[in-house]
């Protein structure tokens, strides 16, 4: 009997324990929303084809896919030919849209609609009129860069009981690549050059990896291991060395930071940097405008 009870206990235990361990192995860890390159997504659901003397509706859903909230969000329809399209309102301000986080995994979205009408075409127009235009999404946002790094004054990689940096011929000089921080603006490379007197110099490559255009970037705060760093853009804009303005041609820029590490051994520590930037996403669209006769013939058919 005892033997049977033991087998039952064992089987029951196995059936109870296995699912728990199995579940645990499938439960994902907290997603890092501030990783990779992310964009604001625009799902355009408006008219691609419109007819003369008929209303025009341009619908779209704007969704913040970034790991950060975006502010002063403005959506504009630009470049529609006024001769053919009457659109009383070209711009809509959406305020702020929350980014993706543990509470809202998909990011905040907003539905918006531009309503207008198509004007009369010239008499005798036979071909469709193709009206190319752009949808602009402008916003302000921030981006955080917070990697854990190994810094220290260790010379020539001598084991000092602290952390180990990346494999490099010169252990004092580390080059770390990054894909992105959950935004279109990204730190794509960090180079740390540790000095022998408890200081380090950080060289960051800041890139626009999105489809749109980054405007002005401002460095908010910058710390290494809780101590402020002195950072400035190599090609800063105007007199403010913490500001840089991208152009359509500029895809990346460099920033240099001086940091005090303290101590005589290598330590594992955290960099904390925040960048504020403005951004414009440009989405080319095409509206096909058809004449009355074509519309009528289509309706008849």
């Amino acid at each position, binding site marked *: 009997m005892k033997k049977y009870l033991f087998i039952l206990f064992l089987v029951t235990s196995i059936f109870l324990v296995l699912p728990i361990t199995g579940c645990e192995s499938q439960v994902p860890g907290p997603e890092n929303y501030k990783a990779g390159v992310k964009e604001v997504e625009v799902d355009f659901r408006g008219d691609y084809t419109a007819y003369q003397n008929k209303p025009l509706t341009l619908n779209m859903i704007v969704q913040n896919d970034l790991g950060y909230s975006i502010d002063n969000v403005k959506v504009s329809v630009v*470049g529609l*030919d006024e*001769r053919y399209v009457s659109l009383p309102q070209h711009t809509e301000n959406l305020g702020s849209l929350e980014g993706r986080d543990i509470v809202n995994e998909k990011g905040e979205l907003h539905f918006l609609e531009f309503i207008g009408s198509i004007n009369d075409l010239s008499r005798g127009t036979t071909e469709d009129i193709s009206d190319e235009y752009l949808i602009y999404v402008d916003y302000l946002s921030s981006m955080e860069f917070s990697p854990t790094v190994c810094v220290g004054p260790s010379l020539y990689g001598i084991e000092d009981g602290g952390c180990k940096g990346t494999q490099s011929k010169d252990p004092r000089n580390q080059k770390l690549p990054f894909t992105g921080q959950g935004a279109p603006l990204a730190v794509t490379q960090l180079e740390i050059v540790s000095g022998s007197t408890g200081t380090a110099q950080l060289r960051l490559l800041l890139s626009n990896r999105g489809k749109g255009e980054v405007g002005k970037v401002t460095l908010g705060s910058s710390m290494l291991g809780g101590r402020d760093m002195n950072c400035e853009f190599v090609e800063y804009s105007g007199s403010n060395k913490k500001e840089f303005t991208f152009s*359509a041609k500029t895809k990346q820029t460099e920033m240099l930071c001086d940091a005090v590490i303290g101590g005589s051994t290598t330590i594992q520590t955290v960099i904390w940097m925040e960048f504020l930037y403005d951004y414009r996403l440009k989405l080319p669209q095409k509206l096909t405008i058809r004449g009355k006769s074509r519309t009528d013939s289509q309706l008849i058919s």
Partner: protein
Amino acid sequence: MASTIFKSKQYFMRSFRGSFSPFLPFFQIGFKGHEEPEEPAEGSSSKSGGLPLFIIAASVFLFTQLFGVPSWYAYASLAFMIYSSIALFDNKGLYLVIIFSIWYLFLGAYDFSTIKSYLIPIALAAAIIHGIVVKVSGKGSFVHEAEGELAVGAFHILIFTIDVGLISWIIGDHFLLPDVVRLILAWVPLWAYVGLFVMLKERPGKVTTALTFVGIAYLIAIITLIPGTVEASTFIPGQEELAQIKERSQIGVNPALVNLKCTWLQVTGGLDANIQACVTRETDKVRYTKICKDKGLKNTREDPALDNCIKDEERKDKEDRASIEGAASSIESTEVHFKAVAKEDFPFRSIAARDIYPITLDIQNPRRENLRIEVACQFMQSKEVIAGEVSIKGERKNQATVSDPQQQLTFECIPSSDLNGAYDLEYTATLFNVKTPSSLKRAFIPALDDYLAREELEKEVKSVEFPSKIDGVSQAPEKDFARINFKFGLGDGTNPIVPVNEDVRFSFSVENQFRAASGESGKILRINSYSFDGILARGFVIDASKTGNPDCLVGGETPAPSSKTTKLKSCWLRIPADLKNIDEFKVRTFDASFDYDYQITHKTRNVRVERIVP
């Protein structure tokens, strides 16, 4: 060789080097050698009858072209014809070509079309004289070698007719010879080539070879160096190129000479690296000179009037060309063309002094405009003009209004007085208040201080809104009779991207773009009105403080333009206030309307009336 040139080998081979006529001893001088030809010395062609013909014909052709007297070449060509008959064909066909020459001098030069009536009598007279001469000289019967006389004579007449540019008379209006062939024939002195062929046959040598190279080079220059055909994969020029060549021909510019000059300039490192540009410039030079000479202007020490006029013409032309381009829009075109009625319904040859001459107007009116059409006709013979009376649908009226999208309007022309002989029948259709819309697209960009930012924005706007050049030029229906081309913007107004912080220059031109069918021509009779409605409606105003025409945006009756494209007016515009405060770029297409009267003319040649005298 002869067999490849001439269809009737026997006649020509026998004719070549035959006996010399005793009745024309004066022609023997200098050509005696033909009776008993000597063996040619190597490298010499001096004894060939072809050499003098080649040299003289080529020289006369060059001279008449250079001095602009092509009619002289026609008279010289009569002499070449007679010479050829005597020297190259040993008098074969001589009587025919002499009688033909006499007829031409007294009658044919004025109205060549009468040859139809005279050809048989001329041929008969030639055959009779030939028969009598043969009989009297005891060389044979009356009809001995009569067929040779007529065949060789006819061949000479054919060469003459083609050489003096009467090819269209031979083939008539109903068979279209490709323009390129017509043009080549117009610029090739055929008698010189006949001489060259004979030299090749008789006296091959260094001189002959050298002259053959010259002849071939000239032909190549004519055929292949006609501008635009060298780089093309085909030797057949396109419509535009043909139009250019036609234009050159009409103003007396020899394409071969111009091309050779330009090729030489390029080879010697002259001014032009581009032959096409050189050809255009040289052609223009001749055209300006002709315009100014036609005005009777001459250079004097005190007043270089001719030179000044040429400079003025050049400047005007440049202004027009820089100007205001136009492209085809997607709007359907209004087209009107004359269309000949069935051949059997038209009395090309009539015995009635006042026959009925019908013609059809083919009208395409897809925009359903109310087209008011007035038709007229007249019969022309040399300097005499006989007016025609017109009836439409059998009624004596000369006007009709058409609003259907497609219609054929047949009208009949009856001479107001009796006809007798050959006439050119000219029909005209005048269309009143034709309306052709035009449009122009422009993008307005906000004022940006940062040059780089402005450049980037311009680039972006251009790529989205003006991917091709024609997106930024004035557009109008492709086949309408005429159109108004306009532009505005910075500088000369060509750039379609307009910064809103600057005033813009506006200008417009009128272009006659009628696509004439065979025998047709068209002209703008008058401009009734024009209005750039789109620009006015958007709030643009003329800046009166600046230079320009105050009626550049809207105007009434204006004299008809003289050339194909004529720049009419220009002014400076102020950009409306609301447009000055834009944050993003704005795009707008501006409409313009153009109201004008247009006249299409159609010529039917050689309408012939043969009256039967009771």
